[in-house]
């Protein structure tokens, strides 16, 4: 055990810090759930890609830096420390990118990865269907092969970013006679293809962060299939290999929120009456720190050849409930101002706690509800009986 950064790691941190200081947009970007904000964020992704900062763990040939996981953590720490823009490109860099590298043909890699990394082509994800949420294997959307093409019919829902994105990666049922997780294939669809209809779904804040996607005799070439026919489930499940459980939410994000919370607390320490707030602030700080320490521990283990286990379920529960507690605590500190949007004249320096509070509501739900994660922990990590 050695918890001191190497000189190289410290130098890397300096380099990241300097580049970010020089390149981060001076004005905060608009929400990427608006057309304007989406394009602003796309431009930022291009800037990142140009500096080879898009995804530092990717190989150099794809615009990355071949960084290890500790370096990735350092990058993330500096990224959040600098309040850099949220990553509109996360479907590409965290989910599809690593999957493409593992399962893609050389032609697919060439066609898709660079444009993905540069932000030129933005990706949405299309897994859930109206009847297939937690029960993802209940997918009914079909891709029927006709010659060199698939003909797509069906409907996807909760497709994040689909309103403004260029492409969507989906799972379709390519074997109409199949059931559950058999007979599914992983297919890319351009969102401007004839027969594709995207219906925005406004979220709690009124902005269309989700969409439904309808496929009506949409035709895509067979080359748009990733991996073999019928292999879709396995690819979807393994998508980003071991890194995904680690990278879905980097600890730096929560550490910076905890820091802002402590600052808010200090500023209000004279008018805080709620006897539970002090305790909650201490807990938030501790948990943000624990999440960072846990991630460093896992990263160290993986770098020595370890495999990721049920960490992703344990992590999911921990960070989502931490995020809720941090924002609930901020709301309690803010009192009567808590309900105000920051543009309200009386809001003062209320900041974006309300946005964060609304977003925190989704944490325990998405990427597998926390109830499902708890089942997984009980059954797989602890070995409790399934039936």
């Amino acid at each position: 055990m050695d918890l001191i950064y190497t000189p190289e790691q410290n130098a890397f941190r300096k380099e990241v810090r300097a580049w970010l200081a020089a390149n981060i947009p001076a004005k905060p970007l608009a929400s990427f759930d608006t057309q304007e904000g989406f394009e602003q964020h796309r431009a930022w992704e291009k800037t990142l890609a140009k500096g080879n900062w898009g995804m530092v763990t990717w190989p150099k040939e794809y615009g990355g830096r071949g960084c290890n996981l500790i370096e990735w953590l350092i990058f993330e720490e500096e990224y959040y420390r600098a309040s850099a823009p949220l990553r509109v490109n996360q479907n590409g860099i965290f989910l599809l990118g690593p999957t493409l590298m593992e399962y893609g043909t050389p032609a697919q890699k060439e066609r898709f990865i660079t444009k993905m990394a540069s932000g030129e082509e933005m990706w949405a994800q299309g897994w859930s269907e109206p009847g297939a949420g937690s029960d993802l294997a209940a997918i009914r959307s079909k891709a029927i092969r006709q010659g060199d093409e698939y003909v797509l019919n069906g409907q996807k829902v909760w497709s994040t970013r689909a309103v403004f994105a260029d492409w969507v990666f989906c799972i379709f049922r390519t074997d109409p006679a199949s059931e559950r997780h058999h007979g599914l294939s992983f297919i890319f669809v351009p969102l401007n293809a004839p027969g594709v209809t995207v219906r925005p779904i406004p979220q709690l804040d009124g902005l269309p962060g989700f969409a439904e996607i309808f496929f009506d005799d949409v035709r895509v070439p067979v080359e748009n299939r990733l991996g073999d026919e019928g292999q879709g489930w396995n690819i979807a499940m393994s998508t980003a290999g071991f890194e995904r459980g680690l990278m879905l939410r980097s600890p730096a994000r929560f550490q910076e929120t905890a820091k802002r919370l402590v600052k808010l607390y200090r500023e209000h320490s004279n008018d805080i009456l709620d006897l539970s707030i002090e305790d909650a602030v201490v807990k938030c700080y501790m948990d943000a720190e624990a999440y960072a320490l846990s991630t460093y521990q896992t990263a160290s283990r993986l770098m020595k050849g370890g495999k990721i286990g049920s960490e992703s379920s344990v992590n999911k529960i921990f960070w989502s409930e931490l995020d809720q507690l941090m924002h609930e605590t901020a709301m309690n500190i803010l009192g009567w101002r808590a309900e105000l949007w920051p543009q309200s004249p009386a809001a003062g320096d209320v900041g974006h706690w309300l946005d964060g509070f609304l977003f925190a509501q989704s944490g325990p739900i998405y990427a597998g509800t926390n109830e499902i994660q708890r089942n997984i922990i009980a059954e797989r990590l602890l070995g409790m009986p399934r039936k």
Partner: protein
Amino acid sequence: MDFTFTEDQRLFCDNVKVFLQNEVTPEALRKSWESESGRSPELWQKLVDIGLTAMLVPEKFGGLGMNAVDFILIAQECGRAALAEPLVETALVGVPLLASLADNDERCAQLLEKIATGERRIAVGHSVNNLISDAHVADYLLLPNGNQIHLVPREQVHLVAQQSVDPSRRLFSVDWKVTEETLLTNGALGVSLLAAALNRGALGAAAQLLGLAEAMVGLAVAYTSDRKQFGKPIGVNQALKHHMANCAVKTEFAKPVLYRAAYTASTHPVHADFAVSHAKVAAGEAALLAAKNSIQSFGAMGYTWECDLHIFMKRAWALDKYWGHAGFHKNRLHQWLLNPNAKIGADKTFGEQA
């Protein structure tokens, strides 16, 4: 000793509940968000017509002469329906304040009569809130200035609209000039009337929070009974059952606390502080838990604008902080408990009255 509502009280409440169910639908609320005022004069007049603004107006001023106990079930229904019109602020908070002064102040007496008939409307300011809700549709504003209470025509104030997370809420900061003409009272009477108004405000918010909590649990139970995953309604999962059961426990135990607070605020307003604070804290916790567990039960659907759940969640988040947030009210209880003479223990539940 009888801790029940009368048959009449229950019946009237049931009628109001049906009325609100029909009039204040989620569709109607969504429509109101698109109007500038966010309010419906027609709906207000209907509320007046069934006597709701007159309930706490003394009979001699054309009202029904009722009290907070009579109104508390109605306030719960306003929460259940997520009614946006300021009925609770008007009838439970503003009216009794005016009534306390009306015997010696013709302005208050006249205004009470017109509130009962729907000819005039009021909004109520209080230092604990900073902002005033529904000032834009009021003819008069009750405004505090230190110990003073003023009654100010809306034309004489400048309103600045504030944006709440709840699109139904219309909040304003108010700029106004203190003049002799608008002064209603001050000194010790001002202090006690403002304190009583705060308690009634918190009481009304607590009642609405409990109604909201039940509404959210109702939506979530219906959804989880209907929505199928893995071939079964998701509501068969014990985790979701227990989420909902936890809400029910919180709500059921907040109700008697609320009703005791309403009783105490009616009969012994000067002793009502901790009863009211207890109710506000308990109801706030019940509503926040209902919001959290309901959205969790809905899943992604609950996170959308088109799902009605957010109508109720946002109101709950807002009212939990209105008329004193949890810290304010817990602190009142804490200070009281620290007093060695605080009457607590098994024989003191109704000790103040004994």
